[in-house]
């Protein structure tokens, strides 16, 4: 048994394993090159005769539910991250598993947060074998130092759906924390004390897992309306006192930045979109949740208001600024993947033009198209970018895992992808000769905006042409890299071991890069 085996060099020139946790995997072949055939994985057949005719699936405790669902060694247990850093459920699952003496579980979260740090002890004692999902903070450190038993697998939100549909990940038990649910298992995210907006990240889990447990602290009589999660998929319902900490569910990077440097990035990004003709009546955009991205929305609003234009739709991560745009009539719709604050939750509850989406509709490689590629411009972050416009979002320049991929890879398929990033953070240059970990191929990344200049991908001749007479400081990516090195000095490369601790999947399920062990 080995964590990984059979290394090959993939189409991006990266050395990756083709055996991962004893399962075979394919190396990255290029964008849109891999077209699997056959049929998708299918869930177990259920019979309604096995479920109570009165629809009451409530069991006494999470422990009882896990026992009823047959939790045993080596299983895969999934959770969603709509509660972000306020999640109180995931840790309890593994507390129970530990008490039951269960070993070698695979945790399959849609993302992990600092609140999941207590799980490191279960990675240490073997309750959890490995994580397939984002590994941040303490979990990222643990994995980066090579201490995780199994190999970590990092996927995009769309890639997570794809992996379930491909049967590459088989979820034995899905635990879906739900702000409101009924005894039948219908559930939503818009009502209740832990309201988080929507539950789209749990959709694949509900449809494909062998067993599904809904956990709520707000049980309502049937029917729970709206029902984003359908009780027809659910095995048991557990009621707890508290499933999430509201102020941590709807907090984080949801205020516009006060940093003058980031505001400048936001201003230039908006100005770039304007001069390049991307902003027009009826356009669409998506901006991430960071302070810079939020501020870009503010600048977009100014431009739209001034011209009497509006966007046709904005893709969320929604927050109060996007909601203001919707309510002011600056966008027709918000197509929302996750809500970041209470204004977003309220709007989703009350406004029919604020629509919930899921990784299936927005990002899934096995959908017959998806929303992400229809967006006119997407504004994303990155920890590193290289001179070929490749970007990294999962590791820092010191090699440690620190972020998940989220929807980042999926969003790269928009018509124009812009990464506003500082040229250097403290003394760490962001533009390098080669990214530490490849997450997004440069051919999908169009523009890098830094506080010292804007680089356009040479392949985007159209954009270069449009910006010919701009007052914005358009430079080459090489010039930007040199500028960073002149200020910071040329950085040494991190000393990484040969051992692979995690792999990064591309949106189609192939392996785009390996994450190597950090030598501490």
């Amino acid at each position, binding site marked *: 048994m080995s964590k990984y085996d059979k290394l090959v060099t993939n189409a991006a020139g990266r050395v990756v394993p083709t055996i991962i946790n004893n399962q075979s995997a394919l190396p990255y072949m290029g964008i849109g090159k891999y077209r699997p055939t056959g049929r998708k994985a299918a869930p177990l057949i259920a019979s309604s005769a096995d479920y109570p005719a009165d629809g009451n699936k409530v069991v006494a405790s999470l422990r009882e539910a896990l026992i009823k669902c047959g939790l045993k060694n080596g299983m895969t247990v999934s959770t969603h991250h709509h509660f972000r850093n306020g999640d109180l459920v995931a840790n309890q699952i593994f507390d129970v598993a530990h008490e039951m003496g269960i070993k070698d579980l695979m945790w399959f979260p849609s993302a992990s947060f600092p609140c999941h740090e207590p799980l490191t002890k279960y990675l240490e004692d073997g309750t959890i074998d490995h994580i397939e999902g984002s590994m941040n903070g303490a979990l990222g450190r643990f994995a980066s130092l090579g201490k995780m038993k199994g190999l970590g697998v990092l996927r995009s939100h769309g890639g997570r759906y794809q992996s379930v549909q491909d049967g590459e990940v088989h979820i034995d038990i899905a635990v879906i924390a739900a702000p409101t649910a009924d005894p039948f298992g219908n559930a939503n995210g818009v009502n209740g004390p832990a309201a988080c907006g929507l539950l789209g990240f749990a959709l694949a889990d509900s449809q494909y897992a062998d067993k599904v447990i809904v956990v709520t602290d707000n049980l309502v009589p049937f029917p729970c309306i709206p029902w984003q999660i359908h009780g027809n998929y659910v095995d048991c319902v557990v009621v707890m006192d508290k499933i999430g900490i509201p102020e941590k569910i709807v907090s984080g990077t949801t205020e516009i930045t006060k940093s003058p440097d980031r505001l*400048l990035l936001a201003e230039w990004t908006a100005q770039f979109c304007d001069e390049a003709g991307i902003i027009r009546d009826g356009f669409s955009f998506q901006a991430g949740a960071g302070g810079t991205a939020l501020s870009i929305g503010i600048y977009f609003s100014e431009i739209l208001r001034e011209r009497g234009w509006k966007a046709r739709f904005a893709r969320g991560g929604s927050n109060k600024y996007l909601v203001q745009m919707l309510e002011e009539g600056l966008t027709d719709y918000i197509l929302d993947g996750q809500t970041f604050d209470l204004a977003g939750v309220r709007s989703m509850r009350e406004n029919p033009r604020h629509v919930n989406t899921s990784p299936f509709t927005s990002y899934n490689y096995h959908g017959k198209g998806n929303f992400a590629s229809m967006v006119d411009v997407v504004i994303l972050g990155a920890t590193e970018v290289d001179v070929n416009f490749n970007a990294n979002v999962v590791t820092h320049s010191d090699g440690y895992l620190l972020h998940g991929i989220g929807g980042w890879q999926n969003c790269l398929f928009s018509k124009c992808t812009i990464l506003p990033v500082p040229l250097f953070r403290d*003394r760490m240059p962001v533009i390098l000769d080669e990214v530490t970990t490849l997450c997004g191929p440069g051919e999908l990344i169009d523009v890098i905006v830094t506080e010292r200049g804007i680089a356009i991908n040479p392949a985007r001749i159209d954009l270069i042409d449009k910006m010919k007479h701009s007052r914005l400081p358009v430079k080459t990516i090489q010039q930007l890299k040199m500028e960073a090195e002149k200020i910071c000095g040329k950085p040494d490369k991190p000393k990484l071991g040969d051992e692979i601790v995690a792999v990064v999947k591309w949106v189609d399920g192939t392996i785009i890069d390996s994450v190597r062990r950090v030598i501490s």
Partner: protein
Amino acid sequence: MGEIITVGNKGKNIRSDCFVTFELKDKGGPDIRLESKVAVMYGNAIMAQAKELMEFFGIQDASLKIEDSGALPWVLSARIEAAISKAVSPDKEFNPVMLKENEYTTFKDRNRFSRLYLPGNTPGLMINAGIHKPDGIILDLEDAVAPDKKDEARFLVRNALRALDFYGSERMVRINQGDRGIKDLDYLIPHNVNLILLSKCEKPEQIHDVNQRIGQLKKKYKIHNPVWLMPIIESALGVINAYAVATAAENVVAIAIGLEDYTADLGTKRTTEGTESFFARSMVVNAARAAGIQPIDSVFSDVADSEGLKQTVLRSRALGFDGMGCIHPRQIRIIHENFAPSAEETEKAKKIVSAYHAALEQGLGVVSLGTKMIDPPVVKRALNTINLAVKMGKLSENWRETYEQV
């Protein structure tokens, strides 16, 4: 064994700086230790730099501990040098290479709409200051630096003047009052500072003292670049003597007013409307105009209140000021936009200026618009407005090519 010397800053919120602990020893050779958040990428470079500085100052036996939060090389070097200088008072300085980009001089009457104050001992705020394009960047050695940090700030400001790209902003330093301020000049004049701000100016003698030292240093280092002065009036006596201060020397290019200290001196409180400082501001404007230099307004201290700042700028401009101070880069754009001519003013000026050019082309001595004759001062003001609008990017330089004469 020497005393334990500490220099610089550390802590959770400190970025792009370092904290240096230095102690001379009797024996044992140099003992350099480094803790750095960028150790993976720059650990070797930082150690090499520390060694170089120790050797340069001939330090044999000493311990040097660097706790680094991502300081750039010129910051590291300023911190280490400040620590060594405290211990051994060396007779030489370790100057980083002067950036070619920083070798510019400024004109007496250049735009000084915005001047951004930055504390002289906080490198993190300096690094990106220039990219926000204020007309001037002030590295403040005076009130913004704690008394026990004033010595080390000199090294930092000197290194910033040499190694930090100012991106074309006028390179300004506010010096301390009295003898400390005169000594500050040693760290500034040889490093192409463009302008010195003198706080709490009340009499011409203060300017003469500073100019005397500047003259000596220029001679010693064979410097020909101009060093301009901007005295700040911050007291009732200063206001009364504003004209004498404004005309104290040839290199005084502007006088500014500092309203926090002034209102304290009056025994009143500063308000947003500014009734209490109307006289003082008018005095400064009149003294400056009489002396043929620029009057510059105080800072607006509520960074979050953009509308309040905008109103203040408009009032300031209406009073006759040519610029004001700012304490946050976010204020720069608002200041520039509102000191710049409005669209209406520009339109009106375009009419007058194009009539003026028509008159010149036709060899007419009188400029007229329709049936109305335009007086020369009105033409002059219109020309100024157009120049300003072009400079501020509000009007194309070639606007006349597409302008249809009315």
